[in-house]
C-alpha cells in the first residue's frame, strides 16, 4: 500500500547514511520548508479555483471555463498577472510595517502547518501540546491584519483591521471551547494521540450530541476567524472597499489572498483531525470486510478528503448565508455561541466522567 511514512523513513535513512546527524537534520529542515512552501502555492491555486467553481455552480453559473480544459489554469494565469503588477506603497504609509504585514500573515499560516498530521506518522512536529499550540498561534494572525490596517494610513484599512481584531478575539473563545470538547474526550493535547483515540470511530460519532454541537460551533467560529463571508466584515467590499488590504496591490495583495485560503485549509485540517479522525479510515464496528477495504485507501487520501469536504462546507456557507452587521456579529458570539459552548463543555465533561460516550 502506498504510504508517505515509507518515503520519509527512506529519506531519513539515506541522509543519515550519507551525512552526520546534524547535517541530516539541517537538510531535512530545508526539505520541509521547500515542501511546505510548495504545498502553500499549490493549495492557493487549487482552492481559489475550487472556490470560484463552487460559487459558480451554487449561483447557477459556469465559472471560469476558458483558460485550459474546464478553466483549470485560470488561477495560474491570475497569479502570473499579479506577479507582473506593480506593488505600490502609499506615500504616507509606514513603509516597514506595510511591507512586513503580508509576510506576518503568511508566517502564521506556515507555523500552523507544523503539528498537523497529514498521513499516518507523517507530521512535521508531533508536539505534545499540539492543540494548545494551534489555538495560540492562530490568534497571532490578527497582528498581521492590524499591522496592515494601521500601516496603510487609510481609514477604510484601519476600520477593517479593527473589526477583524474584535472578530478574531471574540470568536477565538468559542473555537477554543469547541476544541476543548475533544480534548476533554481524549484526555490529551497531542494531535497524534487525538487521532489514535479515534481508531474505533470518529469523535463526531463516538461523542454524539456534544461532539456534534461542538463541531457546529467550531465551523461557525473558524469561518469567522478566517474572515470569510458571512463574517467578512474585515474586508467588507460593500462598505470598506477591501478592508485591511485596500492599499495592497500586486504580489503583496496575492499574499493576503493566499493567506486567507491557507488559513481555511488549516482550520479545516484541524477540524478534520479533531472531529473526523484525521487520517483514520472510516471503520464501522464489527464489519471486518468493510474495515479492511477502508484500510486499503491511503491515509493521506483520507486526510485530504475530509479536509476538502470541510472546505467545501465553508464555501457552501459563504455562497448561501447573508452577511452580518458588526453588532449582529458580536451578538452572535457573546449571546449565542459562547453560552452554548460553555454549556456544551459542561455537558461533555459530565459525559466523559460518566463514560456515556462510545
Amino acid at each position, binding site marked *: 500500500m502506498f504510504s508517505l511514512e515509507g518515503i520519509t523513513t527512506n529519506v531519513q535513512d539515506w541522509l543519515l547514511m550519507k551525512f552526520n546527524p546534524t547535517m541530516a537534520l539541517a537538510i531535512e529542515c530545508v526539505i520541509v520548508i521547500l515542501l511546505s512552501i510548495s504545498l502553500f502555492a499549490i493549495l492557493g491555486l487549487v482552492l481559489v479555483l475550487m472556490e470560484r467553481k*463552487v460559487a459558480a*455552480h451554487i449561483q*447557477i453559473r*459556469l465559472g471560469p471555463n476558458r483558460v485550459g480544459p474546464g478553466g483549470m489554469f485560470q488561477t495560474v494565469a491570475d497569479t502570473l498577472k499579479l506577479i507582473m503588477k506593480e506593488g505600490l506603497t502609499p506615500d504616507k504609509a509606514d513603509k516597514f510595517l506595510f511591507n512586513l504585514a503580508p509576510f506576518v500573515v503568511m508566517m502564521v499560516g506556515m507555523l500552523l502547518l507544523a503539528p498537523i498530521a497529514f498521513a499516518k506518522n507523517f507530521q512535521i512536529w508531533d508536539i505534545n501540546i499540539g492543540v494548545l499550540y494551534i489555538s495560540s498561534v492562530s490568534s497571532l494572525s490578527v497582528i498581521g491584519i492590524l499591522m496592515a490596517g494601521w500601516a496603510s494610513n487609510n481609514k477604510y484599512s484601519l476600520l477593517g483591521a479593527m473589526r477583524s481584531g474584535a472578530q478574531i478575539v471574540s470568536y477565538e473563545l468559542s473555537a477554543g471551547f469547541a476544541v476543548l470538547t475533544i480534548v476533554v474526550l481524549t484526555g490529551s493535547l497531542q494531535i497524534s494521540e487525538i487521532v489514535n483515540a479515534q481508531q474505533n470511530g470518529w469523535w463526531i460519532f463516538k461523542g454524539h450530541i456534544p461532539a456534534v454541537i461542538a463541531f457546529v460551533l467550531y465551523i461557525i467560529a473558524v469561518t469567522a476567524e478566517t474572515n470569510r463571508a458571512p463574517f467578512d466584515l474585515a474586508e467588507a467590499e460593500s462598505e470598506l472597499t477591501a478592508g485591511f488590504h485596500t492599499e495592497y496591490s500586486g504580489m503583496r495583495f496575492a499574499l493576503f489572498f493566499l493567506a486567507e485560503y491557507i488559513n481555511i485549509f488549516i482550520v479545516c485540517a484541524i477540524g478534520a483531525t479533531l472531529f473526523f479522525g484525521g487520517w483514520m479510515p472510516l471503520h464501522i464496528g464489527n464489519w471486518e470486510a468493510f474495515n479492511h477495504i477502508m484500510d486499503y485507501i491511503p491515509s493521506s487520501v483520507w486526510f485530504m478528503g475530509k479536509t476538502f469536504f470541510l472546505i467545501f462546507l465553508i464555501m*457552501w456557507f459563504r455562497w*448561501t448565508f447573508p452577511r452580518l452587521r458588526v453588532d449582529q456579529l458580536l451578538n452572535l458570539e457573546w449571546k449565542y455561541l459562547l453560552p*452554548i459552548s460553555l454549556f456544551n463543555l459542561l455537558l461533555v465533561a459530565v459525559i466523559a466522567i460518566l463514560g456515556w460516550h462510545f
Partner: protein
Amino acid sequence: MFLKEYITDVVTGVTSLLKGMRKTGYYFTHPKEIITEQYPDNRATLLMSDRFKGEVVMPHDANNEHTCTGCTACELACPNGTIKVVTKFETSPEGKKKKAIDTLVYRLELCTMCNLCIVACPSDAIKMAPNFEHSVFDRTKLTKVLNQPGSKIREGIE
C-alpha cells in the same frame, strides 16, 4: 420564558439557514440548472427573453404595410430626442387629405431603451426587438429609418 424564546430563536435561525443550504446544495448538485449562455459560441442557438429591449423596430406585414399613423406620440414621449417623425400629407383616391409618415428616423446611439415610445404608441406600430449586436465602424449607420421604402399604412388604421 426568556429561555424558551432564546431556544426558539436558535432553532428558527438554524432551520432557516439549513433551508437556504438545501436550495444552494440542490443547485450545486444539479448542473442542468445552469442558465449561463456561452454567447459567442452558441450564437446560432442563443435564446433571448421576450422582454429584452435591444432596439426599436417597426414591424411590416407581407404587403409591406405598417400601422404607424404619424401621430408623433413617440417623438413627444422620447426623453432624449431619439425619434424624429417626418410627416407628409397623402391624398386618397376620394380626394381626402390624410396625414402619414414620410420617414421615422431612429437614432440608436441616443436610445436608452426606456420603452416610453412603445408605451406611448396608440396603434402598436413600433416595438422592441431582442437584437443586441449593434456595433458598427461608422456612427452614421446607427441612424436608422424604421419604415421600409415604399411602405404604406395598413387600411383601417386611424
